[in-house]
């Protein structure tokens, strides 16, 4: 069996489809997938450069990735990823905060901009 690596961009396509949905569940999942699309893409690019990132706890990868980007003097990518991560945190964990279509669309604009920058600066 041929093992083809999953392309995180597929999550971006799914996020786009979900952003055209008609419920808060669609919009929340859209924001989350938009974040993971760029997060996984960035992780792959960085690990391609510096090797596998070692972690004390698996959950630390999100912040450790930001720290590596700061070490590489890629502050704009790091901070844009942080914004997307904050929206993703709210979408996945905060049930009291309203996540609407406007935010889902904005998260997609940010995710696409980030993807472009990651491919430009880390390839």
């Amino acid at each position, binding site marked *: 069996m041929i093992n083809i690596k999953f392309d995180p961009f597929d999550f971006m396509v799914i996020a786009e489809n979900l952003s055209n949905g008609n419920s808060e569940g669609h919009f929340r999942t859209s924001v989350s997938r938009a974040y993971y699309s760029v997060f996984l893409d960035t992780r792959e690019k960085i690990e391609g450069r510096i090797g596998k990132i070692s972690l004390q*706890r698996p959950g*630390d990868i*999100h*912040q450790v990735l930001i720290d590596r980007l*700061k070490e590489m003097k890629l502050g704009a990518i*790091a901070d844009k990823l942080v914004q997307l*991560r904050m929206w993703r945190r709210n979408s996945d964990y905060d049930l009291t905060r309203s996540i609407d279509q406007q935010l889902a669309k*904005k998260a997609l*604009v940010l995710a696409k*901009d980030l993807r472009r920058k990651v491919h430009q600066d880390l390839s």
Partner: protein
Amino acid sequence: MIKQGLPEGHYVSHEYVNVESPALYDDIHRISNQILLTGYYIEKDCQEFLNDNLDIPFEIPRINEIANQVTGTELNPVFEIITDEESLELKRLAIIFKIKGYSYDQILRIWDNVSEKVYAGLNTITAQKISVILDND
């Protein structure tokens, strides 16, 4: 006891003026940082973060000035501790500028410009403790 001709009640004990005391040194920094950040509204959790990271308060007026220069407006940042349910121990400070009158696409370009200038003047350790975020209102 230091006696400098003051009335008895005004004598200053060496315990309180030992400039070699690390605790006093930190207190002086905290007070001077609070003076430096007069005019900013800072929630208690963010203030505690700033007290524990004395390299950051000094940078905030500089970052604010860069954002003002790039946007051509007087901006007033809000501060937020970045937390993550999956990584509770790693906290960072978000410095968030809300900008009126621009589309989000335009803000993304402005953001690149602000970031370049901000991080050009920061060492990596301080840079890793903060995130500068631009958003539309």
